[in-house]
């Protein structure tokens, strides 16, 4: 028997560290070769770490939420024959560092004590207790906000005093599902209350309507880890580095919408139905030809703007886990239907969590659209290191004046943000006006 240590692989593109977002195995599990051990997250994508050997898991190299360097030890596996770890080095730092770092590093999951906030003015003891209690289950939440029900080893009986057991029976709660905060996982009255409170948040109980105006003193601590941490970092970074300026213009899309309806009527069946988005993508591709400084990536550390020939179009999309920006690569090579198909494919990949790192990185400019939720005006945040983002607002019929007559027109606003360090206001305005021209006279979209 030997010990085989698997190290964090180099995922490429100069990534030095990744965040551990899920374990698929536990200490003591038998794993087969190629079995997925863990999920790690890079700036963009979730990557699965497979096992290169078969054997029994001896130790895990980190806890979920921990940021690990490439090359650090992910896991130790007991294997047949000689492993790649010397027997003498059994007390390797990585193995013992796992629990130590879990305690010493900023804990990815705050302890209940840290959240209890005893200094909060509590009119009576009960609300404070409830707050502390309700925070307890929060630390069980995984990266995706789901509650981890696996709280004790299979076969382990829940540990609770007779009075807690009795209370659980009264409440109809199975103690095996209740996380215990005490020594050896002992379940306290507070743990049980917290669990009961959480359960009560589910389906509204009969008579709950009477509680509509009840004062609430509970709070829930949601750890910012995984994708949410990435989003938080990126947004903070973009807003800190980039002096944004916004520019909003209204577009008359009456003709565009009519064209879209005609194209859908004629080609919808075989080529797929078009939304407004592919037209906007096409207009953007055409417009950046004349404004190369807008389709660019600004490496502000090096002081270089890389103007991109290709239009790699980021499309901001909402996934269950949070905001993601899949990229339509080489949008300049795609027609309307190709754009639509690629957007649909990427959206599905993002929704199902299967989007690859390549599909989630390398954009040169981004479009953000919330469709019917688009509002009148937005001030989108630039997807750093890009220098521009085009926001699409809601399309709506408005009374407009044409030749002295009030007429109903389909109107839609474009709300865009630009990096004022490298894009001047006039150029930004001209760029949007050019897009407007394409969209208001859609035939020009197809003139080269």
């Amino acid at each position, binding site marked *: 028997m030997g010990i085989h240590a698997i190290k964090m692989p180099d995922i490429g593109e100069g990534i030095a560290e990744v965040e551990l977002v899920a374990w698929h195995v536990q200490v003591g599990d038998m794993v087969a070769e190629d079995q997925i051990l863990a999920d790690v997250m890079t700036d963009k994508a979730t990557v699965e770490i497979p096992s290169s050997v078969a054997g029994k898991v001896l130790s895990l190299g980190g806890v979920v939420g921990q940021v690990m360097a490439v090359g650090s030890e992910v896991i130790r596996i007991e294997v047949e024959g000689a492993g790649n770890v010397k027997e003498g080095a059994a007390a390797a730092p990585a193995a013992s560092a796992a629990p130590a770092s879990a305690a010493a590093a900023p804990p990815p999951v705050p302890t209940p004590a840290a959240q209890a906030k005893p200094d909060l003015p509590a009119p009576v003891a009960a609300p404070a207790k409830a707050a502390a209690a309700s925070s307890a289950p929060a630390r069980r939440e995984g990266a995706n906000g789901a509650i981890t029900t696996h709280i004790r080893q299979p076969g382990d009986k829940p540990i609770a*005093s007779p009075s807690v*057991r*009795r209370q659980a029976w009264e409440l109809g709660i199975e103690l095996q599902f209740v996380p215990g905060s005490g020594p050896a996982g002992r379940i306290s009255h507070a743990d049980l209350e917290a669990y009961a409170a959480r359960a009560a948040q589910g389906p509204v109980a009969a008579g709950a309507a009477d509680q509509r105006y009840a004062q609430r003193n509970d709070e829930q601590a949601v750890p910012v880890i995984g994708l949410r941490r990435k989003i938080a970092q990126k947004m903070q970074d973009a807003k800190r580095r980039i002096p944004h300026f916004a520019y909003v213009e209204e577009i008359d899309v009456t003709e565009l919408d009519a064209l879209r309806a005609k194209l859908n009527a004629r080609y919808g069946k075989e080529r797929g139905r078009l939304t407004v988005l592919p037209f906007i993508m096409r207009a953007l591709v055409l417009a950046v030809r004349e404004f190369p400084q807008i389709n660019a990536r600004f490496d502000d550390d090096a002081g270089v703007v890389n103007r991109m020939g290709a239009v790699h179009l980021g499309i901001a999309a909402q996934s269950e886990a949070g905001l993601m920006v899949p990229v339509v690569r080489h949008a300049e090579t795609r027609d309307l239907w190709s754009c639509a198909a690629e957007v649909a494919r990427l959206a599905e990949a993002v929704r199902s969590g299967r989007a690859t790192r390549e599909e989630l990185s390398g954009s040169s400019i981004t479009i953000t659209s919330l469709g019917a939720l688009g509002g009148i005006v937005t001030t989108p945040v630039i997807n750093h290191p890009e220098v521009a983002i085009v926001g699409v607002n809601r399309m709506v019929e408005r009374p407009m004046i044409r030749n002295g007559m009030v007429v109903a027109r389909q109107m839609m606003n474009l709300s865009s943000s630009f990096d004022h360090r490298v894009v001047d206001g006039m150029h930004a305005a001209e760029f949007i006006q050019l897009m407007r021209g394409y969209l208001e006279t859609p035939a020009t979209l197809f003139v080269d």
Partner: protein
Amino acid sequence: MDTHHTTLLIIGGGPGGYVAAIRAAQLGIATTLVEGETLGGTCLNIGCIPSKALIHAADAYHQTRHFTGDSTLGIQVQGASIDVAQTVRWKDGIVARLTGGVSALLKKHGVKVVKGWAQIVDGKTVDVTLAKPETKPMRIQCEHLLLASGSVELGLPGMPFGGRVISSTQALSPAAVPAKLVVVGAGYIGLELGIVYRKLGADVTVVEAQSSILPLYDEELVKPVANSLRKLGVQVHLGYKVQGMNAAGDAVRVQDGTGHESELPADQVLVAIGRVPRTHGWGLEQLMLAMQGRALKVDDQCRTSMRNVWAIGDLTGEPMLAHRAMAQGEMVAEIIAGKRRHFAPTAIAAVCFTDPEIVTAGLSPKEAEKAGLDCIHAHFPFAANGRAMTLESLEGFVRVVARRDNHLIVGWQAVGAGVSELSTAFSHSLEMGATLEDVGGTIHAHPTLGEAVQEAALRALGHALHV
């Protein structure tokens, strides 16, 4: 036939039945309890209480006789004798006070007690033959039927009770102390009574078919008891099979492990080879309830396989302990009253009142290993305990078993004089889910035997102070 109606009918007035009755009455359930003999069951009448009374008397006599010789304490007594008839009267007085107390408690709570023998008709109907022969039998109909008929002593085939062959019941009311007593069975009942008789002056020989005394306990725990038997002069034959009485009826024929037969002269033979659930002779069979071996099968709420027919105590099998029956009885009453309850103790402590006493709660090291737990264990000897020294009882130890990973205590064992009182601490720590650190961090009063509990926990943690 007169027919009475009640909500809850309890058959058996032992510790399980009477506790269930009191609790049910407290909860406002109309309750009737049927008992053919004196209230209190085996425990109060022919078990726990009378045996402890005799153990106390025998100890006192033994101690006094010890003072007639060389006494390290400097106490000198000129001659000592015992009037066993008076001892039994004293013991009967205690039993009468306790059973009378049970009767008063039932009356106070409004439980209707019917003196008579129950015969089950169906799951909701029971006929009672009243104890007074002149009265007519009565029929009781109920919504809930609680079976608490207890257990009976197991006899040896080919050696029925009668004549010189007695059960523990007769052994607890001796008219005189026999010169030679043979005890069949080295379980806790046989050894408790064997030691009593030895201390009262009988020549005692214990015969056991298995290879160890107290076969349910591990070697370490049993050793001080074996030593004590040797010191007291109790003969122990292990691995012996009992063949029956000899033709003259004055000796027990036995066969040792090699097949060699011999005879053990006996004025009395106490057969104490165990107890079996009382499942026959009162109509229980016709309910066709699911069984588990010789016991009634019940779930964790003491429900039998028939709706609203409940069973508790010895009738439901091992461990046959009064405190288990009481807890079950209390629970069933509460369930019937609409409360949500389960019988889910972490541990049920068991005490063996031999000299020295053995107490166990939870898992022994071997049982923990069998259960697949990775455990550590440590023991603290009474030889290092000040209070034990002042009591002249250095034999024995306290042992703790705890999980290696989180130090959760999963078991306690102790052997030594007076350790039965430690069961409270053992059960409490187990039920509360205490860890070694919890017990080690609790200040235990000095000088007491209980300090050994704390020290055992500390020793398991690697830092006992007094060893």
